[in-house]
């Protein structure tokens, strides 16, 4: 039981239960607000009846031509609210919005190669690996990312996905839209 609604700027005052978790990074004001200023319908939150934030997803629409698509920038669920289908609900909404009004060909996201939980989850949601981005994550330890995609209605011929995507290896600069 959760209300799935658009994220509000003032929700930033209430997202601690989610962001105190070590896997979720807290960014500066501009990061969140620039998404809200441009794609308010791709930034959603799940909250309890008492308006406690449980989870959020932020996304954007980008690319040109056949590459026009929705992108999941971050998705996170507070530890006490995991395995309740919250991520699923938010992904479904983001895919729907990527179709209408954005009319994209697919939705994509980057995930750490080691994040097995997330990779399996996305597979269950219909995503497949499109390519491996070499050392996409830098920091203390560098790590490859999988670029995962799910075609939307507009991609009738499923041109945005491919078999064995994992073996297509690209450099980080090649994945900028």
């Amino acid at each position: 039981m959760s209300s799935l609604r658009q994220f509000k700027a003032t929700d930033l005052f209430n997202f601690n239960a989610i962001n105190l978790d070590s896997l979720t990074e807290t960014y500066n004001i501009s990061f969140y607000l620039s998404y809200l200023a441009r794609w308010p319908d791709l930034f959603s939150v799940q909250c309890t009846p008492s308006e406690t934030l449980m989870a959020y997803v932020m996304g954007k629409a980008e690319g040109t031509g056949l590459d026009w698509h929705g992108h999941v920038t971050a998705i996170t669920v507070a530890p006490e609210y995991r395995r309740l289908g919250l991520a699923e609900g938010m992904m479904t909404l983001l895919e729907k919005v990527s179709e209408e009004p954005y009319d994209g060909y697919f939705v994509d996201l980057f995930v750490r190669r080691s994040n097995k939980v997330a990779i399996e989850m996305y597979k269950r949601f219909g995503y497949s690996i499109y390519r491996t981005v070499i050392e996409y994550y830098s920091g203390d330890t560098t790590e490859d990312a999988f670029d995962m995609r799910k075609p939307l209605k507009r991609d009738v011929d499923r041109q945005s996905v491919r078999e064995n995507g994992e073996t297509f290896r690209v450099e980080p600069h090649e994945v900028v839209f």
Partner: protein
Amino acid sequence: MASTPDLDKKLKPIYDVMEVGNYREGIQLCNKALKKQPDLHIAKALKALALERSGKMNEALLLCEELQWAKPTDESTLRTLSMVYRSAGKYEPMIKLYANASKANPMNENLATQWFMSLARMLDFKGQQMVALQLNKNFKKTNYMFWAIMSITLQGQNVPANQPNVMYRLAEGMMSKLNAEGKVQTIEELQLYLIVLLGQKDRYADALALLEGDIGKKTKAIENVELRHLRIELLIKTGRWQDARDATKQILQNVNSDDWRTIIQYFDTIFLPVQDADLKDSDNLAEARAFTTEQVQNETKNPKRGPFLAQIELEKRVQEKIGDNKAKMLDLLVAYVDKFGSKTCCFEDLSGYIANLCSEDASEFCQRLRENHGEKSGTVKEICIQINIVRFERFTGQHSKFSSTQSMALVNKFWKLYEDALPFGKDLEQTERQYGDDYSIMAAHLLIDIHKDTKSYFPLLSAVFILEHALDASKHNYQMKLVLIRVYELLGAFTCATGLYSTMGIKHVQHDTLSHFITDRASSFGLFDEALRQLYSAHEIYHSNEAETPEMILQAYKYSTFSKMQEFIEFQSRLENSLQKMIADREMIRLEFLKEDSVSRAVSWLQELEITNLKYDDQFAESRIDNRDTTVMLNWNPKDSPSVEALTRPASQLNRIWMTLFTLVPRILKHMAHLHPIDAEYEKLMAALEKLTTSDLSGALTEEEAKLAKILFHAAKAFQRLSVAIADHNSNSASKEEPAKTAAAVKEQLVAAGALLKRESVKSTGVLPWHTFHELTMTVETVAYLNVVNHCLQNLIATKAAKKATFKATGSVIQDFMAQCRQALQSVQTDITALRNVVRPDRIRSGLLYEICDGSAVDFIRSPSHQALIEEKTLKIGTSWMNSLINLQQESISRIV
């Protein structure tokens, strides 16, 4: 000065060196260019930028000001200037500059847009409106009309709802004209139209007509989560019950069965149209029961919680309106736990409903959970259910009835359960929590209860050991860290608390909402530098707000995201007017003052102190916004008892009274430092301080803080008496006072202050809790203020009195008082010397550590395998105490005058 190939060639080397951050050379090149052509605006602007980037803000701003007089009109100069002003947080000058440039080139669209943006940065809605209309006139783009309408709407948003709103009406007129011309086309434009309509009284039907009309259809408004929700809200408001019900059911059946706000809207369509008296046999109730049952039945694979909770919500409302429904409620609640009891959030899902039960029902609920689930802990699922049952038991008050001995037995039981759960989590990732973690947290909660009951600090130490141990197995459990931070603070161990806090990755906006955990009364630990460091690092968010949020408001205009405009402005205002910001500001002033350990430096620090922003009036105080997050900490205490967050505060939460006190103190002292004559302003400050000292402060200030207020009041009164007497003597006024009378009056005040300064020496019981440090620090701080007062009193006589000899008697009164201040500091030192003896590592080993372990009732402590941890943590606490003591000792020595 339009860009020409010639000019570009000239500037290229400057841009090149600036780009790579070589600002020194940039300045040189600019100087060279300016020598040849002194009126080359862009060179001057670039020089200003280079100066700013190399940290010479003042010089940079001087150049900008020069340029401002020259009224530059070329875009690159203006853009460069704007960069300098922005990083200085000055937005005002750019408005004039762009206004001027735009007026000189009315057909330059970019300049006019920049003019609009410069106004938007300052939230000058009226100015925005004017420029947007001009933009529309000159460049004929509908988008500029929407900017104008947004600007007008923002001017109208503060008009009280019951008053006619001219602005909204104007905005509506413009909107409906655009709409008639078919120019309202996007969802965001529609949203703006809706904001305008719904900002006015009783316009639900019109808003609904819009949503359901052509634009609504064209923009597929109903597909948008927010507008879909709004439409149903409006259907309800306009009494179109059937439509509203159909719409909610459609969503719940086909889109998202879990969506709580839609579930609530569905219930609105059931309950609002029916009088309570008619509810029982109404079709509505029958239909709601049928619908919720059907929804529950549809949840087969991976059931969502929403439909099950909807059933509970329905029966709760029936109970409230008709009654006679308790048995059904209980059955549903128990069944919910049977189904979702292994989910952590089960407790939170039901706690609102459980809180509504009478105490018999609440116990029956818990009893039935026990009957169904016993004490089984053989699987992860069972462990999670057990933890939820325990949460419910605590929440329904079962723990509240316990004696300390019973509570202690429960601590031991929870510890055992925690340990038993560990093997189930041996394969969990480092980033995940152990299944039994909440047992350890609940054990800590019980220990906190015992501490509150018995006033003993040993339970708190036990909580530290248990949580630190559990944290080893769950490195990132921030809930444990939050409790630990608070317990360390209660135990007076500030560096232990800051150490943990720094591992939590608290950043950016969290500085506003969470820093209170570490900065509240942080000055009381005697570690002034550490406290200041924490405050300054948290304070960055407020600078970021100034620098970043206005740019984001501009982004929203750029992308025509009108639905977010008010939200962004509210966000900005909540940070700008944050209560926490103001508290931090005051605390920083206190600590900066305390850094000046010689009286003369303290006096000149006060003289230089900028006080224009140091407000304390009621309007200012009441308009502070409290963004502090106090709910993130886990809490299973019964609903009418204080939360764990509240129970673990070292002293009452900082509030507006506290802020008034610590605004008045520096302001009054500043007045004295200048030896300003007594004026209306001083009397106003004194009246405010007097009001504070005579009101009931318990619960708002600590005893020591209240004492400080009183002491300062007396001292400031003494200053007032002397200052007035000197002035009267100097002017030979008819009302001048006998010198002896002045001396007696000053003495009366100082004696009163001196009496309050006396305190009993601190007794050590092995633990040095927060309060010990608070008492000692407050004494040092109070004397630091009194040193300034004494200095000023003496200076009044020395520099202001025409005949010094007249005030000789007063002079010796001051001398006596100075001796009292010295004594106060000496007594602090005596205490510290005694305490330092107690907290030496060898003494801790033979003293405190022995006491902790000897005959402890806590199983955890008795276990031989935990001895190393207990010793390590105890010594660490001791080190923190020692640091505080050493620092405090230096602070007090340096203040003996």
